[in-house]
């Protein structure tokens, strides 16, 4: 009985800590929502008001009036989904090679992959822009999508994850005459659901929130993604923060949905059942 009491107090403290932490995470979101419901007059007072005096949904309808907002949402969706699929497919296939196959210069090549993430994008943007011009891809969807699909991030993440999968499972399959493709598709991938879910979330997020590159490569409002379009709300001298926050709230919601959906995949991998202790 005493042991139970001890455990309970510890749990209570832990819970309190977690709840406080969670509250700090949630407060900005609540503040964003409350700001989006204000009329511009009261937006930036110091100290800030958390509860709008006359809450209104005006900001949201104004968003749709000022910008081709629905179009931008569709553009962002198209870009984010394409990038996610692309990163998962190309990244997982490359990760399979780096984690399971051998060839001369493999480690050097992997190092090169890592190295590509170390050069600040602010300078590579201009040569990339020129490349797009050369390909005739300025102001097209493929221009926005391609550089984000082929970053080394996905390969790195999945390689690390694949490396934790014990080789016992494949050994058996190879003996049975399975090809690399079968092993990849039927053994490695199903077992890596948490990592794949993680990559999907982050690839989607990177593409969904991408700002600098889509800004540079799109000229036409019809093809702009959300962050680029929302930046247009920033006036030169004064910004209507209620509109900006409304835009920010709308931007977050699909991300949260994706996150909640992929939460289902954060289950213990099937690998646990195959181990012989």
């Amino acid at each position, binding site marked *: 009985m005493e042991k139970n009491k001890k455990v309970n107090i510890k749990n209570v403290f832990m819970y309190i800590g977690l709840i406080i932490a969670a509250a700090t995470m949630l407060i900005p979101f609540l503040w964003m929502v409350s700001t989006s419901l204000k009329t511009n007059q009261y937006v930036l007072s110091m100290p800030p008001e958390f509860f709008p005096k006359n809450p209104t949904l005006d900001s949201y309808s104004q968003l749709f009036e000022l910008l081709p907002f629905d179009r931008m949402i569709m553009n962002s969706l*198209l870009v984010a989904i*394409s990038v996610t699929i692309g990163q998962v497919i190309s990244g997982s296939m490359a990760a399979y090679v780096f984690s399971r196959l051998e060839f001369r210069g493999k480690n050097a090549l992997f190092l090169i992959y890592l190295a590509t993430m170390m050069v600040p994008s602010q300078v590579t943007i201009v040569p990339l822009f020129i490349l797009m011009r050369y390909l005739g891809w300025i102001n097209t969807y493929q221009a926005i999508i391609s550089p984000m699909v082929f970053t080394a991030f996905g390969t790195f993440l999945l390689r690390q994850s694949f490396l934790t999968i014990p080789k016992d499972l494949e050994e058996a399959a190879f003996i049975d005459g399975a090809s690399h493709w079968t092993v990849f598709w039927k053994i490695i991938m199903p077992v890596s659901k948490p990592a794949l879910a993680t990559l999907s979330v982050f690839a989607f997020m990177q593409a969904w929130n991408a700002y600098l590159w889509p*800004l540079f490569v799109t000229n036409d409002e019809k093809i702009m993604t959300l962050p680029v379009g929302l930046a*247009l709300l920033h006036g030169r001298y004064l910004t209507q923060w209620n509109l900006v926050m409304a835009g920010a709230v709308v931007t977050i919601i699909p991300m949260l949905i994706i996150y909640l959906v992929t939460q289902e995949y954060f289950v213990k991998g099937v690998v646990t059942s195959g181990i012989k202790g």
Partner: protein
Amino acid sequence: MKKIFTPVIALVLLASIFIAGCTPETIIETVIVTEEVVVEKEVIVEVPAEEEDVTVTYFTFSAAPDHLEDLDEMISIFEAENPKIHIEVQTASYDDYFTKLQTRIAGGDAPDVFELNYESFVSYAAKGVLLNLEPFAQADPDYDASIYYQRALDAFNYKGMQLGLPETFSTVMLYYNQDLFDSAGVAYPAADWTWDDVIVAGKSIMEGNDDAWGIHSSIHFWEFYKKAAQNNCQFFNEDQTEVLLTSPECVVALETMISLLDEGVMPTNAEMGGISDGDLFISGDLGMLVSGIWMFSAFEENSFNWDIQVEPGMATQATHFFANAVNVFAGTQNAEAAYKWVKFFTSDPAMAEIRIDSAWELPALNNPDYVVGYLSQSPPENRQAVFDSLEYAIVPPVIERQNEMTDVIGAALDQAVLGIITPLEALEQAKAGIEALLP
């Protein structure tokens, strides 16, 4: 065979993303079917390709987000008068505009027509990327240089070439909260005030009113060169070979700016706590504000009475002259059409009317009718002060490495404001930094 089949499918899937990407219109159009889309498609089919149908791209920072409709109105008037020319608007927010413009020019995707402000004009002009509009103006019987405000036209003339036409101009005024002045029993600012008068008034306003501040006038490069001029401080000698910033007049100018903080009538950045000076004025807690005439529409809904006055001076008066121009890219394929658009957009009466009606900045035109229209609007009442200010207007000192100079001075000012160094030390630091930038 089966073993190779599925990986090939995967590759094909990947490739199909590109193929799908190549025909974006079909994907989007099938998802969002609106009338607009259907109409556009019909138009493309029906109108046969005539000769000389030209599209001119116009890149702008001043239209979004509030004046896109006004711009569209102007464009429809223009296109009605010039049926073979179609204007395509491309927008960016001011913060990103110049980065994007440079990248586009570097990448060979330059817009035909684009906006520039005075500070950036000089470097673009010097690099030869702006088209000389003089020949087009000469060949155009309808072109009349005198309709433009002369100073604005001159601002965009580089070495005898007219490299842009002035679109709008603006200046900076002293805004004041009449209600706060009334409660404190202080007389409203007069056109010949000095900063000493400002400090006295500010202190009276703050007495007995814990929430109020007396004045706000930003301490950065653009305010500094104007305050410097108010005290007859010269940045450079005649041929810009020497930096004169450490002269007594300049030191006094900077000390005067900082004295507003020291006397407690102006809030520090920490005391502002992240809200802008415009927001502070709107909240009704600021007695006086030095800011541009572009704030008129933002202040329209203020819950208190306010007006403007010519900015206070020191030994003399000096006020800002800011101007934006529209320029044609030197490498454009559509020079004639671009010129027509530029001329229309900067001088056409229909355009000016739309601008003034929707309070979208002042056209840089000499026409007294527009002035009357502008003056008759309120608030503020004392719009005449805007034109009075122009008597004392000055342009910023410009060197080739302009942005670096702005940052050097900004860094020095920041340190002086925080009290890390004295005003004299700040100016010495600035002088050394600028000398390193001169050729």
